[in-house]
């Protein structure tokens, strides 16, 4: 019994940490309608700033605290709102997610440049040396402070948001800015207040957590992921429930350590507890009304190429690849091959995210499953392996989609994130999968009469596959199913209203997308002849999605450029050391630009189209659509 009580105390303290990070997320969401993936990164930057002032510059602790919590953090929040978030008003969930993920990378990049990550830094605990014993567990005053602050935030922010005029106004401008402004509330101003408060809470969490978990850029940034489940327990709006969710998660983790038998498979469960918890919460807790998903703004849909055009472009592309590849060095061939394999994986995002409007953060996980099957089946280079790779990825995709089928938008994105993280810990890092050498040999498919062993031959094969799949994706878009997909992406409720089976459509596209990613994984493995445990991590899936969005996630051509860029990044890092730390910044900035150009680089108008528009508009007439892909159409979509 004493052990149970001790584990309970430990769990509650740990749970309050999760709760504190989660409540900042909830407050930001409540006051802005945006789920801020960069919340942890904002807290991380604030914690480093606090270290800079209090430790490195030697300012008195209270002064440093005031400067960071009440000046730096709110200003940062207000600036983020003004520059990045305000243009997102009414944007789709995938756009807001992409922009906040981009902000996350941007802040990591900035922090990496300012504070050398190879240097260890320590933030001292508040009230260091003081502690109390509770039920046999020694709890420091600093930990108690975390508990008290978490509880105070839960109660205080709840009262502020629901019992005060400014709090009510903040929620009102998110619910209905037009109505709120008619009542005298300025949406811009209150939005800015919301982000300032959110950044303040992120900073508070960062400063309190850093002494407990070490001042580390990645740890502080990613720790908030464990808080997502707590935030969803509170349905992204209820702070006391969020607090309770955090505590429950902490207790579950603590009991898992305490009572699962050690030295067995069960002892490996703890790393995936937060993700499993998140997955269960998403499925069990009724979805709250997601404000960000409640609006749709019609985009100027990128033109879809016709059959003839697609085939001609494809043949030309393969021919160019054939010719150019003859002049590439073996290393450049390998890089191009990688880019092409990534581009094929990214085509799976066109179907799912671009057309279907369903955000997936686990495409590389499916690719990893494809590569795994290819390596394991029939010696690693057979057509059976290709089929197995596609089949396994598709089947797992369907399994993931089945429970998540009723989810949409943010909830679906988070469930795929949980799946990717859980698979990383439980599958890819498992020595039974890739062995102790962490690598699995993956062969190249045998085609009778054609040798694909040379880098050039395999690159051409990849180009052919890319073209075939790309033409297929465009064909899907032009088909009745494609129209259903786009309709579902634009307005699920509206689509259901006209009799389209949303569940089946979603299941089919999720499965097809996963299978396609699996095919990409098969080819990716073949390209480098092996895959390893580190090839399919969540962060890479996020970067993949970001690049796809930047280049135009509704376009096949965009995926080609995005894939190639993804493969070229390491080359740039390798050969231009001065740019190493700038890459995160570049990706972050690119993703942030999505807010202003949701269709991405290739989804926008070409110079020729703009010229035609100008001519059509006549001399001296402004071209209303020349600079914006967004068509003003504030149609509300239920749910």
């Amino acid at each position: 019994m004493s052990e149970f009580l001790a584990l309970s105390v430990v769990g509650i303290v740990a749970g309050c940490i999760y709760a504190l990070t989660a409540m900042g997320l909830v407050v930001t969401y409540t006051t802005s309608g945006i789920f801020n993936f960069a919340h942890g990164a904002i807290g991380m930057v604030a914690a480093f700033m606090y270290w800079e002032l209090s430790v490195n510059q030697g300012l008195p602790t209270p002064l440093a605290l005031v400067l960071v919590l009440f000046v730096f953090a709110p200003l940062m929040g207000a600036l983020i709102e003004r520059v990045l978030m305000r243009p997102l008003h009414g944007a789709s969930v995938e756009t807001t997610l992409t922009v906040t993920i981009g902000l996350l990378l941007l802040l990591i990049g900035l922090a990496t440049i300012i504070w050398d990550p190879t240097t260890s830094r320590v933030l001292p605990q508040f009230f260091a040396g003081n502690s109390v014993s509770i039920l046999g567990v020694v709890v420091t005053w600093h930990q108690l402070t975390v508990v008290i602050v978490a509880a105070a935030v839960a109660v205080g922010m709840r009262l502020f948001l629901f019992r005060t005029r400014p709090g009510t106004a903040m929620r009102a401008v998110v619910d209905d800015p037009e109505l709120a402004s008619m009542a005298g509330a300025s949406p811009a101003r209150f939005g800015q207040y919301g982000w300032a408060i959110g950044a303040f809470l992120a900073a508070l969490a960062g400063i309190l957590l850093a002494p407990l978990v070490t001042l580390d850029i990645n740890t502080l940034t990613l720790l908030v992921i464990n808080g997502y489940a707590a935030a969803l327990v509170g349905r992204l709006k209820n702070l006391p429930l969020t607090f309770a969710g955090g505590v429950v998660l902490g207790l579950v983790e603590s009991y898992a350590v305490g009572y699962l038998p050690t030295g067995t498979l069960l002892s490996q469960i703890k790393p995936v507890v937060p993700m499993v918890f998140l997955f269960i919460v998403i499925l069990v807790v009724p979805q709250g009304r997601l404000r960000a998903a409640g609006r749709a703004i019609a985009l100027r849909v990128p033109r879809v190429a016709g059959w003839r055009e697609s085939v001609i472009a494809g043949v030309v592309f393969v021919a160019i690849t054939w010719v150019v590849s003859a002049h590439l060095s073996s290393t450049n061939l390998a890089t191009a091959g990688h880019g092409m394999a990534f581009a094929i994986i990214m085509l799976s995002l066109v179907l799912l995210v671009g057309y279907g409007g369903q955000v997936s953060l686990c495409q590389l996980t499916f690719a990893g499953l494809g590569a795994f099957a290819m390596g394991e089946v029939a010696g690693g280079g057979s057509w059976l392996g290709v089929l197995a790779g596609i089949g396994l990825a598709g089947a797992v995709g369907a399994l993931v989609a089945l429970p998540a089928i009723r989810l949409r938008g943010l909830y679906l994105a988070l469930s795929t994130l949980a799946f990717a993280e859980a698979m990383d810990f439980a599958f890819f890092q498992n020595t039974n999968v890739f062995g102790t050498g962490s690598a699995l040999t993956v062969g190249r498919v045998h085609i009778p009469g054609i040798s694909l062993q040379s880098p050039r031959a395999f690159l051409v094969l990849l180009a052919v596959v890319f073209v075939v799949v790309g033409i297929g994706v465009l064909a899907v878009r032009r088909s009745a199913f494609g129209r259903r997909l786009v309709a579902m992406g634009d307005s699920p409720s509206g689509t259901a209203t006209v009799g389209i089976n949303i569940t089946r459509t979603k299941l089919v596209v999720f499965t097809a997308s996963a299978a396609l990613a699996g095919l990409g994984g098969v080819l990716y493995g073949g390209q480098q002849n092996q895959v390893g445990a580190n090839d399919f991590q969540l962060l890479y899936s996020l970067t993949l999605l970001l690049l796809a969005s930047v280049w135009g996630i509704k376009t096949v051509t965009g995926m080609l450029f995005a894939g190639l860029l993804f493969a070229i990044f390491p080359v740039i890092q390798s050969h231009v050391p001065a740019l190493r730390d700038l890459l995160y910044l570049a990706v972050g900035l690119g993703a942030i630009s999505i807010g202003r150009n949701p269709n991405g680089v290739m989804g926008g108008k070409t110079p020729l189209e703009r010229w035609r528009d100008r001519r059509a508009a006549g001399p001296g007439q402004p071209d209303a659509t020349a600079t914006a892909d967004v068509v003003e159409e504030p149609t509300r979509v239920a749910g």
Partner: protein
Amino acid sequence: MRLKRGLGLPVIVVTVGLVAAACGGGSSSSSSSTTTTSAASTTAPPSGGTASDIGVTPNQVTVGNVSILSGPVPGLFQGAPNGADAFFAYQNSVGGVNGRKITLKSSDDAFSCNQNQNETQSLAGQAFAFVGSFSLFDNCGAKVLQAQPTIPDVAFSLDPVAQALPNNFSPSPLGNGYRTGPFIYYKQQFPKAVQSVGTLVANIPSSIASWNNEKAAMQQVGGYHIAYERDINPLDTDFTSDVVRMRSAGVQMVILGNADYKTAARFLNNAQQQGYKPQLVESGGVAYDASFFKLVNPGAAQGLLNDQTQALYLGGDAKTTPEVQLFDTWMAKTHPGSPPDLFSVYGWTSARLFTQALQTAGLNPTRASVLAALQGVHSFNSNGLLATGDPAGKKSPTCWVLIKVNNNQYQRLQPPSPPSGFTCNPDGQYTRPG
């Protein structure tokens, strides 16, 4: 071996600290190392050497290094090229080898398998050999080295396939097993503690493999009982639950060698906070790091034992082992902002092993002659910076040194006299069958 470090993509992060607790050996005899510090022996004056092979000119030898220098954890293994570079700077300062200066071309694989393969391929056409590379993706570059077996690769490889290549020579081979010496010692000194062992193991393949070998080594020694073990991930930042559990399970020996030094520091801080004092905490070398004492609370690491196969290169053995003095001096001279770490030790010792072979290869070295020279090196300890291993035979060192933490300082505990060298036992090794 054990590798690991701080974060990255979540999982990688833990990956660095673990390289530390590699090899080690038995108990009895104490072998003081051979410590004649020298540039790879005599350095002949320039005398008509020719461009005898790729990367060789009459006055220069160019070698390559492919390591992770950027990516999710920037500078992850920067120590590896730094260490090799420091040694070559020293060697060049005394005239190079046979009149040729040695130049290191350092490449970054940017945490990418493809890029590791590309950089290895690219350098294979320019560099005479690879020296001191260190990457989690060395399995990818190994494809190139496998296809071109004439290229000497002197490096501490993590990948079993790379280790097994005939052209790979590690200054401190991992072997497939684990040293038993420390476990024999612990059993003698802490007979009760070894009956109840607890551990935290980073949830990544190399750590898990290392832990499995360690368990088998304990089993071979006998008398050990594993009472608590748990896989941890990089986002595990509080280990109080483990402390509670270990205390209830009566754990008296805690092994932290399969996690990184940050995890070790956090665990020790949690244990201190809860007043949990097992008889023995062993970190297998991961806690031997210049940053460790920044992270651990005063007193929390008191009595911690590190058994490792490197001398006390953070200055502890500088007075008694000239090679350590040389290493520290040249690291400070060439890379003043980067404190020495385990990876710079591997870089330095790889460079010394290569230089030794280059010297042996004569005035006009070829890849073949250097490979032949390396194949003759069955005993190497980098003048006492490492425990003696067998690079040509790919046998790991069976000697080890035991370091105790006292008042937040590292102190040599075994062998105590003379105050240098390693404790050796020729049979002190568990080798995994097959």
